[in-house]
C-alpha cells in the first residue's frame, strides 16, 4: 500500500457568525466542545484514525488561534516523518496578489501546487465544523469499488427537515442521479455531509476550468458537483450512520454538548478504538470538594467543583464554588461560577466569571443564554 494515496483538505475558513461572541476572536472550527475538545479535533482525529498522513487546513477568518492550534500536528499524531497538518491561508504569488478565497472550491484551486507536491491519487474534502466520527478509509474503499469519479458522504435526515439540506437523489445502486440544494419538495432524505472524495487528476482539471469561469461561485455544492453530474460522471453516495452534528448556533452547540450526557450517547467519546485527540493541557487533576453535589455531568481535568452540578458539561479549568448551582448548562474553558450564583440553561463563554449570588439563564427560556461577559456579583 502506498502511503499518502489520499490527502485530506479541511475547509476551515468560516466565521460562524451565528455563534455570535464566541467567534469574535476565533474561527468556528476552533470553538470548544465536549469538555476538552475543539470542533476541528473531530475531522483531524478522523483523518489520523483513518490512516491519512497529510492534511491541509484552509483558513481565512481570525485564523491566528486556529492556525497555531492545528499547526501542532503532534496532537493528532500527524507529525511523523512524511506527515503533517499544513495551514493554508490565502497568499501572494508571483502572478497573483493576496486575495481572499472566493468559495470552497476556490480555496482548493488556490492550493493546487500544495496538493500536487504530494501527488495523491485521491483528495478528501472535509468541513472543519462538524462533530462526528467516521472512518474515511472505508469510504475510500467504496469509492474504489464503485470506480467512481466522486463519492459524497450522506446521512439520512427526517424527510420533513430535508429541505434544509443539500439532498442527493440516488438510484438503487447508490449512484447519484440528481443533486438538489435545499429543495422545497425533497425526493429523498439523503443529506450531503459536505464530505467528498475526488480523483485528484480529474478534480484538478475541473478546478482549473472553474477558476476561469466568471459565472461560477467557486463552490463545491453549487458549481463542482452539478458540473460533474451534467457531464455524466459517476458520483456515488456513501451512507453514513451515526452521530453527526453541524453546530451552527448557540442552541445547537449547547444541544451537542447535552447529547454527551445520555447514558449511551451515540458519539461515544470513550471508545478506545477511535479516540478523539486534542490539545494536551497542563492542569491539576479534577478536584471535587467536600460540598460538591454532582449528578449527570461531563467534567474534565482542571475543573474545581465544590457546588451543585446537574445535567451540565464543564470544560477544562472551569470552577464552581461552594453553594453555586449549575443546571442544564455548559461552562466553557476557565469559566468561574462564584459561590451562591445560579446558572441555568446557559452557555458561559471562555474565562467568563459569574459573580457571587448572580443568576444567569432561566429554566423557561426558549433559547440558551450565551454569557460572553463577566457578570457582577450580588452582594
Amino acid at each position: 500500500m502506498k502511503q499518502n494515496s489520499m490527502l485530506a483538505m479541511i475547509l476551515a475558513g468560516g466565521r460562524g457568525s451565528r455563534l455570535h461572541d464566541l467567534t469574535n476572536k476565533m474561527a468556528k472550527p476552533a470553538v470548544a466542545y465536549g469538555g476538552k475538545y475543539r470542533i476541528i479535533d473531530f475531522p483531524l482525529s478522523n483523518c489520523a484514525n483513518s490512516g491519512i498522513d497529510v492534511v491541509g487546513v484552509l483558513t481565512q477568518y481570525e485564523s491566528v488561534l486556529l492556525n497555531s492550534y492545528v499547526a501542532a500536528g503532534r496532537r493528532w499524531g500527524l507529525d511523523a516523518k512524511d506527515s503533517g497538518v499544513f495551514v493554508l491561508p490565502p497568499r501572494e504569488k508571483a502572478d497573483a496578489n493576496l486575495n481572499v478565497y472566493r468559495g470552497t472550491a476556490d480555496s482548493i484551486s488556490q492550493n493546487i501546487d500544495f496538493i500536487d507536491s504530494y501527488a495523491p491519487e485521491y483528495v478528501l474534502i472535509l468541513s472543519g465544523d462538524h462533530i462526528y466520527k467516521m472512518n474515511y478509509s472505508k469510504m475510500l474503499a467504496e469509492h474504489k469499488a464503485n470506480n467512481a469519479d466522486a463519492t459524497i458522504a450522506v446521512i439520512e435526515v427526517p424527510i420533513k427537515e430535508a429541505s434544509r439540506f443539500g439532498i442527493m437523489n440516488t438510484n438503487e445502486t447508490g449512484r447519484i442521479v440528481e443533486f438538489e440544494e435545499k429543495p422545497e419538495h425533497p425526493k429523498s432524505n439523503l443529506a450531503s455531509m459536505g464530505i467528498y472524495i475526488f480523483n485528484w487528476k480529474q478534480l484538478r482539471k475541473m478546478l482549473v476550468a472553474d477558476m476561469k469561469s466568471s459565472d461560477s461561485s467557486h463552490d463545491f455544492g453549487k458549481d463542482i458537483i452539478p458540473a460533474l453530474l451534467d457531464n455524466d460522471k459517476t458520483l456515488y453516495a456513501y451512507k453514513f450512520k451515526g452521530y453527526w452534528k453541524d453546530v451552527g448556533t448557540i442552541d445547537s452547540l449547547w444541544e451537542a454538548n447535552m447529547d454527551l450526557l445520555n447514558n449511551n450517547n451515540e458519539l461515544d467519546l470513550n471508545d478506545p478504538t477511535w479516540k478523539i485527540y486534542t490539545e494536551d493541557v497542563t492542569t491539576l487533576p479534577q478536584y471535587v470538594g467536600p460540598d460538591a453535589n454532582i449528578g449527570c455531568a461531563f467534567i474534565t481535568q482542571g475543573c474545581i467543583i465544590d457546588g451543585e452540578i446537574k445535567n451540565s458539561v464543564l470544560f477544562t479549568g472551569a470552577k464552581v464554588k461552594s453553594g453555586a448551582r449549575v443546571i442544564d448548562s455548559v461552562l466553557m474553558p476557565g469559566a468561574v461560577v462564584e459561590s451562591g450564583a445560579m446558572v441555568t440553561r446557559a452557555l458561559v463563554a471562555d474565562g467568563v466569571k459569574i459573580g457571587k449570588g448572580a443568576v444567569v439563564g432561566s429554566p423557561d427560556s426558549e433559547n440558551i443564554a450565551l454569557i460572553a461577559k463577566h457578570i457582577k456579583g450580588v452582594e
Partner: protein
Amino acid sequence: MYSAFGIVNSTGKRIWVDGLEVYRPIGAFSFMGRYRVIDFPISNMSNSGIDRIQVYVGKNPRSLTDHLGTGRHYNINSKRGRLHVLFSANTDEHDIYNTDVSSYLENMEYIERMHNPYVVIAPGYMIYTTDYSELIDNHVKSGADITMMYHSVDNAKDTYLNCNILNLNKQKGVLSIEQNNGSAKSRAISMDTYVMKKELFIELVQKAKNTSSLYTLADIINDECSERDVHGVAHHGFFATITDFRSYYDANLSLIDFKTAIDLFHDDWPIYTKTNDSCPTQYFETASVKNSIVSNGCLIEGTVEHSIIGRGVMVKKGAVVRNSIVLANSIIGANTHVENQVVDKRAQIQHVKEVISAPEKPGYIKRGDVI
C-alpha cells in the same frame, strides 16, 4: 544561568516498595491519578531550563520507557535537548551491589560526553517542586564543592525511616550524612538532590567504587564532608518520599486537600505528564462524589469519598469507595464497598462485596486481579 545537565536516579538500594514494585519501578508509579512519580523531578528540571536529562532505569524498564518516550511532553527540545534513558545491566532490585554508583559507572561514557559544566542529581522517588536554576546559582555563588537540598521535618521519629538525614552546622555546612534511625523528632531529611561540577561528580563516582562496591553517592559524600565544602540548602513547600507502601498511600491522600496541593503546584511551574487522550469523566444521576481527585475517562455511578480515582475507572451503581486510591482502568463493581485500599491497575472488585482494611493498615489489590 549556569549550564547543567540533569540525572534522575532511582536505583539506590534503600528504596523498596512492596506490592506495586513487582510490576514497575517507583518512578513509574501512578500518582494523584494522572501523574507518575518521575514526572515531578523531570518537570522540575525542564522548568529550570535543564534540557539534557539522563534517567537511569533498572528492572522492568518497559513502563518507564513507555511513559518517558522522547520527552517531548516534558517540553524538552527534541534536537537540542534530550531525555536519555540509560539502563543498568544489573537489574536485580534486591542485589546489594545494585547502587546508584554502579549505574553511573556502567554509563560513564554518556556522562563524560555531556558538554555542560554542572550536574543536578535528583531522586526518582521524591515528590517536590523546586527551581534548580536558583539552586545552581546559589551553588556557584556560595563557592561550595557540593550543594545538597534538605527538608526540615519534626516527625522523623516514626516517618522518613528509609531516608538519610543531614547533620548541619550553623552555616548550613553538612557535617555528615546518616540514615534516619528515628531517634529524634526534628531532622533535616536529605532530599538526595545534589549540585556539583561534572568533573567532581565523576571523581566521586570513581572514588566510591574504589572505596567499596556497596557505596552509594551519599556514602562517598559523607566521607568527603570533612574535606570538602558541602553546603545544605533548605526546601520549603510540599515534600514527600515514596519509599514504602504506606508513604505512597499517605502522600497521595494528603494531596486531596486543595490547600496542601497548592503547596506543591504553582501556576508558573507546570508538572508535565504523558496524555492518554481520555475523554472527560461522566457522572451519572446516581453518582455521589465528595472530597476526591478524579481523573478523566471515568464512568461514575456510585459513591466516592476522600479518594483518588485514576483514569478510565468505573464505579458502578451502589458501589462505595472511601479513603482509597484506585488506579487506571479498574472496575469497582455494583454494590461493593472499598475502603482504605490501593486498587492497582485493571483490577476488578466484582464478587467480594466488602474490601475494607483498617485505616492504619491500608490494603492492596493486585494489578489485574478479579476478586
